């Protein structure tokens, strides 16, 4: 028990919860906390240029370390600018603690300067939030905030602290393990359900494992267990966008990503399987395609820590509620004790899979004159794969190409905005990753449109000498928007072309970092090497083919087995991929 001010408590609570870095932006309502930060050295504050950047940086930090990310912003506009990363973290289950300043208690409700109803605005985009009304409750609330953010299905929380609370003195209480009686996330899966799942898996002739971000969130141990389960069972495995890296892309049972821009083999396997084991994924609409034609003949096992994910979009036969790592541990143990991989039984299935694989659905037409975006990602992968490389992305075609063509071998190396699809996520996320891993190679695979949404954070990267590499696949368009306009709207490219593009090399120089431009396939390798070898931050303007489309693709309203493959994607097929009735409903 210690007497201290509210502002001191904030810093002490951060210390007691193991926080080393926070991302933030000062303002009137948080000045007492900033004053405390100034007078200590345990916690390093990273100054961003916009509060959205602080949020995404904290998300990147959290996703790449497995720890809670922390952001600190002021009241009013500081808090409203934090809304996008909060919702982003909610949808992708990223543990994030956001501390906001608030106007003094006596002014709340008076429309004071920089006042907003922060807990009201952030209620639907957080796992939980608190307005602190008494300095003696502040420490307990902060500890509880960390507990809620990191346990169960991780997510963002907001602690809103009025300025008078920051100034006033009260009693600091140290962290407790179970601060609240109503909140009990289930960790251990039901033993009977796990047993039933293993029994079902033993009988499978055409099985598939479909894993998601929940495995990555469950820690590196969970990814190791997943790999072990795949090896023990001999089952093929695919993963969602968020789950890439949990099973290595070089692993022989790897099918590639599934879903709208997933591989042909992954989607065909999902469609034709007889037993589906879903681990830490949530049957999102980008994954399932047309839901009444989704994997019609399979028995489905679903492991998820969040009971509300079960039976939400797809009815499953065996639900298992629990932490992916804990349940995987039980499954591996039970499989070892009672089952053996049925190599002969699975052979016809693998033969079929290999026929699908031979369609080579990620193929594209190479060009000697222009850089194909897929080629750029492939070269980036080849030239960085021997290093400790972290990839972040923005949102759009480049994101899908990165997911398809970059081989992820480890979990926590791939940071992308999956659920919310936030353009502008990648650059600040890269900053957060680089702060957490100063010696690693951190690359934001970006699009020319997305990157401009948070480009101001280059200034933060330069300030902290965070050597992030912004690798822009510059096609002058909002590529994914243009692709959909081509597919759905008669190729009327309404406002998807950026007519006044900045000179990214000059922009890099203006920020005080290094700029590189490359538009020839023959010069790409040397340029990428230059980027890697540059000690500081780099903006790489990679000029790619302007009108390349991202394939394969499940056109909307179609099932997994009705994919549009690149070799079939003639102009005519693209134009007719979606029927007239469908266009009306967009």
């Amino acid at each position: 028990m210690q007497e201290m001010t509210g502002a001191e408590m904030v810093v002490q609570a951060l210390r007691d919860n193991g926080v080393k870095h926070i991302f933030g932006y000062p303002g009137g309502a948080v000045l007492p906390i900033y004053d405390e930060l100034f007078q200590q050295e345990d916690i390093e504050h990273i100054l961003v240029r916009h509060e959205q950047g602080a949020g995404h940086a904290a998300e990147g930090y959290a996703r790449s370390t497995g720890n809670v990310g922390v952001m600190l912003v002021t009241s009013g506009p500081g808090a409203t600018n934090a809304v996008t990363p909060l919702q982003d973290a909610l949808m992708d289950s990223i543990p994030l603690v956001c501390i906001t300043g608030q106007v003094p208690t006596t002014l709340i409700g008076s429309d004071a300067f920089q006042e907003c109803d922060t807990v009201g605005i952030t209620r639907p985009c957080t796992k939980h939030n608190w307005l602190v009304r008494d300095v003696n409750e502040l420490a307990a609330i902060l500890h509880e905030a960390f507990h809620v953010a990191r346990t169960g299905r991780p997510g963002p929380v907001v602690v809103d602290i009025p300025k008078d609370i920051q100034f006033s003195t009260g009693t600091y209480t140290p962290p407790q393990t179970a601060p609240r009686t109503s909140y009990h996330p289930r960790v251990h899966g039901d033993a009977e359900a796990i047993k039933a799942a293993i029994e079902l898996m033993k009988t499978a002739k055409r099985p598939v494992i479909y894993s998601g971000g929940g495995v990555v969130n469950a820690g590196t141990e969970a990814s190791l267990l997943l790999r072990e389960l795949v090896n023990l069972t001999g089952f093929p495995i695919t993963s969602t966008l968020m789950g890439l890296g949990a099973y290595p892309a070089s692993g022989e049972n790897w099918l590639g990503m599934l879903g709208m821009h997933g591989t042909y083999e992954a989607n065909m396997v999902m469609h034709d399987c007889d037993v589906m084991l879903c681990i830490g994924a949530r049957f999102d609409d980008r994954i399932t395609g047309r839901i009444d034609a989704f994997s019609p003949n399979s028995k489905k096992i679903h492991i998820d820590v969040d009971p509300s994910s079960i039976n939400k979009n797809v009815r499953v036969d065996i639900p298992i509620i629990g932490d992916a790592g804990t349940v995987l541990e039980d499954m591996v143990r039970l499989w070892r004790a009672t089952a053996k991989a049925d190599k002969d039984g699975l052979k016809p299935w693998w033969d079929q899979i290999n026929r699908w694989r031979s369609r080579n659905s990620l193929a594209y037409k190479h060009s000697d004159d222009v850089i194909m975006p897929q080629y750029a990602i492939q070269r980036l992968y080849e030239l960085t794969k021997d290093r400790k490389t972290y990839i972040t992305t923005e949102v759009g075609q480049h994101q899908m190409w990165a997911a398809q063509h970059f081989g992820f071998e480890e979990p926590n190396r791939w940071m992308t905005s999956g659920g919310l699809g936030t353009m502008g996520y990648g650059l600040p996320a890269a900053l957060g990753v680089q702060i957490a891993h100063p010696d690693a190679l951190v690359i934001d695979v970006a699009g020319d449109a997305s990157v401009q949404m948070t480009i101001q954070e280059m200034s933060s990267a330069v300030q902290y000498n965070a050597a992030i590499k912004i690798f822009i696949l510059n096609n002058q368009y909002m590529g994914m928007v243009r692709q959909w306009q081509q597919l759905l709207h008669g190729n009327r490219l309404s406002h998807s072309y950026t007519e006044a593009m900045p000179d990214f090399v000059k922009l890099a120089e203006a920020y005080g970092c290094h700029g590189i431009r490359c538009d020839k396939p023959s010069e790409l390798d040397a340029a990428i090497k230059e980027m890697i070898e540059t000690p500081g931050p780099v903006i790489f303007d990679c000029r790619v083919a302007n009108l390349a489309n991202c394939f394969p693709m499940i056109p909307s309203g179609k099932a997994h087995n009705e994919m549009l493959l690149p070799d079939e994607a003639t102009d005519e097929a693209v134009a007719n991929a979606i029927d007239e009735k469908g266009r009306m409903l967009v």
Partner: protein
Amino acid sequence: MSAHLQPTGSAYFITKETSKAEKRTLAVLVDNEPGVLARVIGLFSGRGYNIDSLTVSETEHEQHLSRITIVTHGTPNVIEQIKHQLERIVPVHRVVDLSEVAQERNQDNPLERELAMIKVKGKGDARVEALRLADAFRAHVIDANTEHFIFEITGRVSKIEQFIAIMKPLGLVEVCRTGVAAMNRGPEGL
């Protein structure tokens, strides 16, 4: 799945729900802290669920526990989601589906009662008739002068609806209702 999906060609799929909606009464035990009701209501509006009736009051003062009674309707899938989503709210202790419990115990429905105050203004025959009907409905007069009555009536929702309908031609002025309070029959607790 019972839902029929229309192939749309849209970025999203548009679902046409074909299974029948059913009425459910839920009891939700929550920590009585600021904003908890907003969390529950926000969940319903944000996810497009229905609220037919909602009542809330602190029921255990020492533990600061409130009991929220929600009457909702939806397809079985939606009802299942509502319960899971409510359980996700951090200050929610328990969600009990009273309708489901009643079915398990071979009872029709949980006991449901509502209280209403009903103001009726009138003179002469209408006034006499209002008082006579109120007596038949076991409504009490809790305020009156020569021109009006305020009745207090407790009972099932249907009874209150009926009473209000009857009072309409007799000079109904104002209605205030509490919403439904509900509990399962039998000796067992929540």
